[in-house]
C-alpha cells in the first residue's frame, strides 16, 4: 500500500514528565450582557493568580474560539499579558472550537510537564452576546466543515438534530428519556454561584419548550452567553507548597473526521473514547474510579453519547443515566455539578476552563451546596465540533 508518510512516535507515553498541579482557579459568573472582552478575561485571571499566591508566571495561554468574529479582538495573548502587567511573558492563543479552553489547558500542561516553564496561567474566554443570535449561530457553525456542512445549510443545532433523530430511532428511545439530562443540569444550577441560569425546570416544561430544529427543543440546547475562567498550573516546589493543589494525573486529546457525515458510525464518539483511554491510561485509573464527571452536555443527546463513549454505559443506553438519576450529585455518576453547559452556560472558548475550575472546586471540597460527597477524583471531558476534537483530563486531590 502506498501510504502518506507516517511519523514514528516511540516515546509517546514513555517520556518521564514532571507532575503538574492546579494551584489557583477562578471563574466569573456566566452572563448575557458583558460589556468588555478585556474585563471578562482579566477578572478570573487576577483572582486565579491571587488564589495561587503568585504574582508572575512563566507563560500565559488563552483559549478562545472566535473572539475576533464575536468582538473584533484577536491577539488575546499579549492583550491579557499587558493588562496583567506580565509582559514580556510568552503568551499564546489556542483554538479548538468549543474545546478551546481545555485545549489551552492541555498546551499549558505540556509546557509545565516538559520542564519548559515552571508555572503557566491559562484563561478561557468568550464574549458571544455582542452579536445577534443568527450571527452567533453562523460563527459557531465554523466549528463544522465550512464548505461541506455549513455551506450546505448546516448549523450546529441542525447537525445535532439529525444526530438526535437517529439516536431516538435506532435505539428506540423517547424524548422523555433524554430530557432529564436538562432537568438535572438546571437542578444543580440553582445553587451554582457562577451559573447563567439559576432555575429548576420540570420535565414537562422542558418537553413543551419550542422546537428549535426538529426534534431538538429549546431545553435540549445550551445557551449563547459570555464568560471566562482561569487556572494557574505549576510544577515542583511551587505545587508542593500549595495546601490545596489538585494534581493532573492524566491528559488525552484526540481528533476525528471534520465532517459529521464522514464518521463510520454516526452514533459513536470515537475521539472521545480514545481521548479518555489515553488520559486514564496515563493516570493508571479506570473510568469507574472517578467521583464525578464534568462532560460536554451541549445537547441532551450529546450527553448520552459522551457517557457511552467513556464506557460508563453500553452503546444506546446512555439515556439510562438520566432516567435512573444516576447523574445526581449523590448518584454514582454525578455530571454537570454546577449546571453544566446546559444551565451554567456554554461560552464556547471558556467552557472547558469552567469545567476544570468546577472540578477543582469539587476536589478541594469548596463546592458548597453543589458538593459531591467525598470527591477525590474527577474526569473532565470537553468537545470541539460534533466530536472532531476531544480533550479529557483526570484530576485528583492531594
Amino acid at each position, binding site marked *: 500500500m502506498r501510504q502518506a508518510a507516517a511519523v514514528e512516535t516511540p516515546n509517546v507515553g514513555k517520556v518521564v514528565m514532571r507532575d503538574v498541579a492546579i494551584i489557583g482557579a477562578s471563574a466569573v459568573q456566566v452572563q448575557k450582557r458583558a460589556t468588555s472582552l478585556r474585563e471578562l478575561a482579566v477578572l478570573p485571571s487576577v483572582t486565579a493568580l491571587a488564589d495561587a499566591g503568585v504574582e508572575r508566571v512563566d507563560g500565559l495561554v488563552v483559549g478562545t474560539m472566535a473572539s475576533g468574529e464575536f468582538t473584533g479582538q484577536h491577539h488575546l495573548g499579549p492583550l491579557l499579558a499587558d493588562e496583567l502587567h506580565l509582559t514580556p511573558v510568552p503568551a499564546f492563543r489556542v483554538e479548538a472550537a468549543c474545546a478551546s479552553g481545555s485545549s489551552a489547558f492541555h498546551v499549558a500542561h505540556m509546557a509545565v510537564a516538559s520542564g519548559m516553564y515552571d508555572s503557566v496561567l491559562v484563561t478561557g474566554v468568550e464574549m458571544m452576546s455582542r452579536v445577534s443570535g443568527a450571527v452567533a449561530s453562523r460563527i459557531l457553525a465554523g466549528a463544522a466543515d465550512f464548505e461541506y456542512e455549513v455551506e450546505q445549510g448546516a448549523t450546529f443545532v441542525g447537525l445535532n*438534530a*439529525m444526530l438526535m433523530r437517529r439516536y431516538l430511532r435506532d435505539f428506540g428511545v423517547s424524548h422523555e428519556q433524554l430530557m432529564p439530562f436538562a432537568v438535572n443540569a438546571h437542578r444543580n444550577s440553582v445553587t451554582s454561584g457562577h451559573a447563567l441560569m439559576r432555575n429548576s425546570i420540570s420535565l414537562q416544561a422542558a418537553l413543551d419548550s419550542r422546537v428549535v430544529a426538529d426534534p431538538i427543543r429549546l431545553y435540549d440546547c445550551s445557551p449563547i452567553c459570555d464568560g471566562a475562567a482561569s487556572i494557574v498550573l505549576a510544577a515542583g516546589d511551587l505545587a508542593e507548597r500549595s495546601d490545596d493543589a489538585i494534581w493532573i494525573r492524566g491528559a488525552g486529546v484526540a481528533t476525528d473526521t471534520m*465532517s459529521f457525515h464522514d464518521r463510520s458510525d*454516526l452514533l459513536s464518539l470515537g475521539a472521545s473514547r480514545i481521548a479518555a483511554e489515553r488520559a486514564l491510561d496515563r493516570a493508571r485509573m479506570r473510568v469507574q474510579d472517578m467521583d464525578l464527571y464534568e462532560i460536554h452536555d451541549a445537547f441532551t443527546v450529546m450527553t448520552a453519547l459522551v457517557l457511552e463513549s467513556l464506557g460508563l454505559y453500553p452503546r444506546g443506553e446512555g439515556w439510562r443515566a438520566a432516567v435512573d438519576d444516576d447523574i445526581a450529585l449523590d448518584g454514582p455518576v454525578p455530571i454537570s455539578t454546577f449546571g453544566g453547559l446546559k444551565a451554567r452556560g456554554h461560552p464556547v472558548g471558556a467552557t472547558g476552563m469552567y469545567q476544570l475550575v468546577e472540578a477543582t472546586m469539587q476536589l478541594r471540597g469548596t463546592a458548597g451546596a453543589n458538593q459531591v460527597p467525598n470527591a477525590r477524583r474527577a474526569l473532565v471531558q470537553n468537545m470541539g465540533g460534533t466530536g472532531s476534537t476531544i480533550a479529557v483530563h483526570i484530576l485528583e486531590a492531594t
Partner: protein
Amino acid sequence: MTDIDNNFDGRLVAGTRCVDCGHVRVPARLHCCQRCGSVALIDIRVPLQGVFESWTSVPGSESDPDRFALGLVTLDAGPMLTVRVRLDPLQQPYVGAPVSGRAVRRAGAVEQFWFELAVDELEQRGAA
C-alpha cells in the same frame, strides 16, 4: 480543466476512489484516502442518488422561496453527504427513503447539493 469539469451536469459530482481499499469519497480527497491513508487515488464521478439517513427543519421564514430542510444522504456509491432538501409539505421523509440530487455550482464557492425525495422510485415501490 478536467474531463469531470467538461462533463458537469449537476447529477454527477467529483469524487475519489482509493485503489487499495476501494473507499469512495465526495468531495474528492486531495492527498490520501480518509480510511486507509493510501495515496493511490483515482478521480471518479459519483451519481447524486441515494437514501435519507436523517433530516431536520431549518429555522427560517415559511414564505422564504429558498426554504429547505437539512439532510444526511448516503449515496449509492458509498459516501455520505450533508445536503439541502426540498420537501413537499405533503411528503413524509423517512430513514432509507430514496432521494436524488443535483450539485449547483456557485462563483467563488463550493457547489451546493440540493436533494429531493425520488418520487418515481417511491411510486414504483408503492406499486410493487
